């Protein structure tokens, strides 16, 4: 933010400002927050309050410390009427308001009742039709000039009546009674009271009076507004991504099974992942005899065996590399050519664009179940189609070819290919739409100039479309790579429940499949987290390479 914007008010600040009553209240509340947070932190560390242990204790103590620090930080600035204090206190009060309100609702057991709301809505949704009727009446009132106001009134009250009936059907009356009963429980009441006071303090700090006292500039006000606008996303990110990310990093250094106490094991999980051994086999010697205890065969190259403490990790990475090298080009290049076709001005092309996009918007699980049937070696349509195709070819005199009938899901040679084909099919339409969007941003004048020069379609495609699509291509390849390297649902559905998601002979074992098996089938959450972080670093590295290449291309004027 720049410092040039004028303050909202032009009143000069005084050397020793007089404190308005509301500001004194806010300052006192900030002090209470600071003291309360410090006391809470000490109480939790000493075990005097709450029964947090391990990670929970660390997280809550850090939160308490941050709260105390923020409150203490804001107080002197509030006293000096410096806007920094107003901004800090506003954001702190807002954060505490949200957190304590959520905590109060959790203590009241409200989130567990969400299913009940859905069930009630399912049983009583039809009352919402009254609201729709009311809206229709209201919106059509202008057609009847003479009675417009009366019809609008009828429409409005119909909507109100519909909302009231729907609320009653959803259980607002017993719900309110129960809500109030739970609200007066000590824990809930305390949290609700803190939320209420934070709400009042937040409101006091947001008023125009406060802006005058603190001489808030437009830029400063907009900065806080910006933070508040993005706060839902920030809270969501922290709760559902940031915290789990950090927590999983911590867990990766433990042997946590998800059920019992966490034990710190240091880098043992990572050491296990990367422990490998190469041995050369003597005549008559087996791999298990040659490898050290705790090592199992991962790969064999003639007489040389690569052993690993976790061969599944290496097999999974080999599989995902193969998948990536084949599936990503298959999901990208056809999409580019398809986009070139879809970008033409042939009548009905919009319909085709929609058709090609359908696989991506269709439910992945449902689509996979259909493909599972298609892939069935005995009764699937793919093998049936191959059979009929060869019947057709064999009509040519002298030909008597035998139709191949691949066992798509049960043969290790084909299992990964079945996933690659599905993935390419699934992504092609989506990527094509992205390419079409990119192509429509290319100036038509370039093509016109090329036409004047007599360039062929291929030359225009190669020398205009492809180079100018580089940013889109970068995005398509990067997102497809990130999705592809995390492939899980495809093997999980296509292989199971007949086979484990790792497929026949581990041919569809991928890193995410392995971490699922470790975390949820073998109760090794710690090891699964370590696998997740190794995969994350790998994907991050690949993406960085893409970024680096893109920036270099841009610097060379190609992007």
């Amino acid at each position, binding site marked *: 933010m720049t410092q040039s914007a004028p303050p909202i008010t032009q009143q000069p600040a005084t050397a020793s400002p007089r404190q308005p009553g509301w500001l004194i209240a806010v300052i006192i509340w900030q002090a209470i927050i600071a003291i309360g947070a410090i006391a809470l932190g000490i109480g939790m560390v000493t075990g005097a309050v709450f*029964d947090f*242990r391990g990670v929970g204790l660390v997280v809550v103590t850090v939160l308490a410390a941050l709260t105390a620090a923020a409150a203490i930080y804001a107080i002197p600035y509030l006293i000096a009427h410096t806007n920094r204090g107003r901004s800090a206190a506003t954001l702190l009060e807002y954060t505490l308001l949200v957190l304590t309100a959520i905590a109060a*609702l959790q203590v*009241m*057991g*409200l*989130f*567990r*009742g969400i*299913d*009940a*709301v859905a069930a*009630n809505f399912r049983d009583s949704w039809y009352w919402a039709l009254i609201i729709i009727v009311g809206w229709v009446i209201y919106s059509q009132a202008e057609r009847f000039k003479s009675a417009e106001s009366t019809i609008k009134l009828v429409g409005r009250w119909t*909507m*109100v009546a519909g*909302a009231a009936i*729907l*609320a009653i059907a*959803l*259980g*607002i009356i017993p*719900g*309110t009674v*129960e*809500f109030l009963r*739970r609200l007066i*429980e000590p824990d809930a009441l305390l949290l609700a009271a803190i939320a209420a006071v934070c709400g009042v303090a937040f409101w006091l700090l947001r008023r125009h009076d406060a802006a005058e006292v603190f001489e808030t500039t437009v830029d400063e006000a907009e900065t806080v507004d910006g933070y508040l606008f993005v706060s839902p996303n920030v809270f969501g990110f922290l709760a559902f991504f940031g915290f789990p990310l950090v927590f999983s990093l911590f867990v990766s250094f433990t042997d946590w099974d*998800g*059920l*019992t*106490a966490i034990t710190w094991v240091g880098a043992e999980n990572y050491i296990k992942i990367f422990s490998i051994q190469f041995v050369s086999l003597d005549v008559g010697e*087996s791999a*298990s*005899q040659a490898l050290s*205890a*705790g090592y*199992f065969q991962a790969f064999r190259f003639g007489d040389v065996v690569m052993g690993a403490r976790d061969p599944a990790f290496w097999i999974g990475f080999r599989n995902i590399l193969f998948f990536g090298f084949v599936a990503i080009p298959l999901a990208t290049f056809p999409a580019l050519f398809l986009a070139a076709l879809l970008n033409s001005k042939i009548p009905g092309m919009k319909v085709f664009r929609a058709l090609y996009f359908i696989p991506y918007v269709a439910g992945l699980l449902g689509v996979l179940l259909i493909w599972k*049937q298609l892939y*069935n*070696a*005995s*009764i699937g349509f793919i093998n049936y189609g191959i059979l009929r195709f060869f019947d057709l070819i064999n009509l040519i005199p002298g030909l008597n070819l035998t139709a191949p009938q691949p*066992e798509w*899901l*049960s*043969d*290790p040679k084909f299992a990964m290919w079945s996933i690659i084909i599905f993935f390419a099919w699934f992504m092609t339409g989506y990527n094509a739409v992205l390419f079409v969007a990119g192509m429509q941003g290319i100036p038509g004048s370039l093509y016109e100039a090329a036409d004047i020069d007599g360039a062929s379609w291929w030359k225009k495609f190669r020398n205009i479309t492809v180079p100018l699509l580089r940013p889109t291509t970068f995005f398509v390849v990067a997102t497809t790579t990130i999705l592809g390297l995390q492939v899980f649902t495809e093997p999980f*559905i296509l292989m199971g429940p*007949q*086979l*484990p998601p790792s497929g*026949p*002979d*581990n041919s569809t074992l991928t890193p995410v499949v392995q971490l699922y*098996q470790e975390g*949820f*089938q*073998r*109760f090794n*959450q710690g090891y699964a987290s370590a696998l997740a972080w190794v995969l994350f670093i790998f994907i991050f590295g690949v993406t960085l390479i893409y970024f680096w290449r893109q920036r270099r291309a841009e610097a060379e004027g190609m992007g």
Partner: protein
Amino acid sequence: MTRRLLVVLFVFALVVAACSSDDSTDEETTTTAAAAAGEETTTTEAMAEETTTTSGGDEAAGAVTIRWRTRPDNDQEAGVYASISDDLQGQLTDVTLTYEAGGTETEGYQQALLTQLAAGEAPDVFWIPGADIAEFASKGVILDLAPYAAADPDFSVDDFYPGPMAQLTTDPATGQPGDVLWGLPRDVSTFGLYLNLDLINEAGAPDPRELAEAGTWDWAAFTDVATAVSDLGAEVSGYGQSSWWGPVGWWLYSAGGGFFNDAVDACGLDTPESIAGLTAFRDFYATGAGLTYGEDPEPVFKAGNVGMFQNGRWATPGIREVDFNWDVVKLPEGPGGPSNWQFWGAYVVNAGTENPQAAWDLVAALTSAEVQAQVSELGANIPSRVSQDALDAFLTFSPPENNQAFLDGLSEGNPVTEAPLWNGDWPSYRDAMNTAVNAVVTGDQTIEDYQANICTELNQYFDG
């Protein structure tokens, strides 16, 4: 302003409506796993104290809420369990039951349960597969119900099949029977052979049910029937089985071998009997009479292209949809005599429940003969109670006409109980075994190599 007020009011209505649900009361089960582990060795005295507290508390505070969950195999079964919960609500006094549909095997039942356990939010009573009992018991996640069972005059261990009960009364510290009870079996199941009678008749093969009746239903007869059916055409197979450990295990146990040694503390896959079973298994597939190993046989059978399909009772509801004549026959005898599996799962109690007595009452009610009859009526399960009434009721639930085949699997089949490894890592053992067996069947590994190496590799998955 009015519009904004209406929106606020409506949101408030949604919020308070969430409070009107029964499952969101303040009776939370939030004990941490560590705390649960500390409390798992509940003594009789502690039980008596808890029981008194619970009963007294119940009377003083009104009804307690018990959340429970099971893993249905399909939507129909989920509906039956919801209906059972409603029925039991009327029978259990001072208890409010909340049935949480848990999703099926492929819908993340296990993931959801583990996540809730880690968060201390798991239901009071839940179902787990028999092979998971050791893991849950040794980690202190489930409650030892022995004190509650001892105080229940209506409970007797002998009411249930001994195989599952032996596992449910195993002390995880020793791996031997102990004075513990980890839960009660919800149901049991065995393998049978689902027959496409139209295909078998068309092939001119003898009716396997008649062969079984005559006592000549063995591997040779089975191979003859399968070969005759597969000779009908390239698109027809004589036999289909899934490629998980259950069907493979049947070949090994039928030959007199098995997965483990007798003490179940070491690999038993390289014994001559086990190798004979695996050899027969490989040789059978080499004849081409079987559907490609690893291919899902169920849709192919339902499409009418497989003569004999090996699966458990749980497949029955789906098979009932086919439009050809079908029935079931017991599995053929191998050189080691009749063999089968006894699959099962159990209702267990969350170690962190605040109402252990009420939870036990629910477990007992869910495994009563009446409730088991209700579930069995769908056709997916065999009652876990050995009472003749329960079995007679099961026999009435047809098709298949030959329901007795499944019961024969239990009574005559020398069934091997699905069991956890109390002193080993079963998931790792299982996966490594499957990979090795698959390599043998597909010809990627010789039997000799397999025999030489399999136990060296798999014995590493045993403790110590």
